């Protein structure tokens, strides 16, 4: 028996025991009252456009981080010409082009929205503090800020269109 299969058996035995426990824990956490976990995290409704931008910021961040890690690991293949060729073949596939195009669009959104958030945190564009009178208006989510989010989404959609155009030559 090779050392690799011994290693595989070792981990397989453990994962077989652990995964039902992990699944039970996830189900338990989803059922707890006021602790809905990912279900609430992924639901952008009911809080306006700022909640949508918050969710998109997180999704784009995770996508970009996964892309970056895979890209760094993929770059190691440059040390061998054959491996580089094989992996380049994957990059030139339609799926590869779509992954790259989405990356460009999400990077555009993440960058522009990130700059907006930085300015907001510096006190720029969040309005002046005012007494909370009925009908309540959220000072920090004024027209300019909301417009900024819509423009950011528009720019990232344009970036997606441009990237798809470059990769697929339409």
């Amino acid at each position: 028996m090779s050392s690799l299969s011994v290693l595989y058996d070792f981990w397989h035995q453990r994962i077989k025991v652990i995964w039902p426990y992990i699944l039970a824990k996830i189900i338990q956490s989803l059922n707890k009252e006021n602790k809905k976990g990912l279900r609430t995290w992924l639901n952008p409704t009911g809080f306006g456009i700022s909640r949508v931008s918050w969710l998109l910021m997180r999704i784009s961040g995770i996508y970009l981080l996964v892309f970056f890690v895979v890209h760094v690991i993929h770059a190691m293949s440059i040390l061998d010409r054959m491996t580089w060729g094989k992996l380049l073949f994957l990059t030139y596939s339609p799926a590869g082009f779509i992954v790259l195009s989405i990356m460009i669009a999400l990077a555009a959104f993440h960058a522009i929205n990130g700059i907006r958030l930085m300015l907001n945190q510096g006190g720029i564009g969040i309005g002046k503090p005012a007494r909370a009178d009925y009908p309540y208006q959220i000072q920090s989510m004024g027209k300019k800020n909301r417009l900024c989010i819509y423009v950011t989404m528009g720019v990232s959609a344009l970036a997606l269109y441009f990237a798809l155009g470059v990769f697929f030559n339409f």
Partner: protein
Amino acid sequence: MHWGCFSIFRIRESHIRKIHYSTALGAIGLVALHISVRFATGSFAASLSYENVISNYQNLTYALLLELILILVSVHGFNGLRGIFLDYRSGYKYEKTVNWGCFLFALSIIIYGTITIILANQIKI
């Protein structure tokens, strides 16, 4: 005085936020440069040919640019992931695991990428 997460270095959360923003600004500029180089050398396909990529790695300025991108994006990305995990749940043990996990992942990606840059720099075509 509240010492923030990343308590392995005892850095305050407010300082971590400044690091997060400065790495973001640095990464935006450098990644834009990195992507534009891929399209500036004729076609995207030609820029990814084996010879072209090796010559990129052997150009000291470009190698430094790649190393900087590697460090900035790793620090920014894994600090962002740490923020997401800490938003999701709390607890001393959990926070400590998340801090150390993100720190070690970022460090290993930086080491891995640096090894690639150094080894690719020594390849003879």
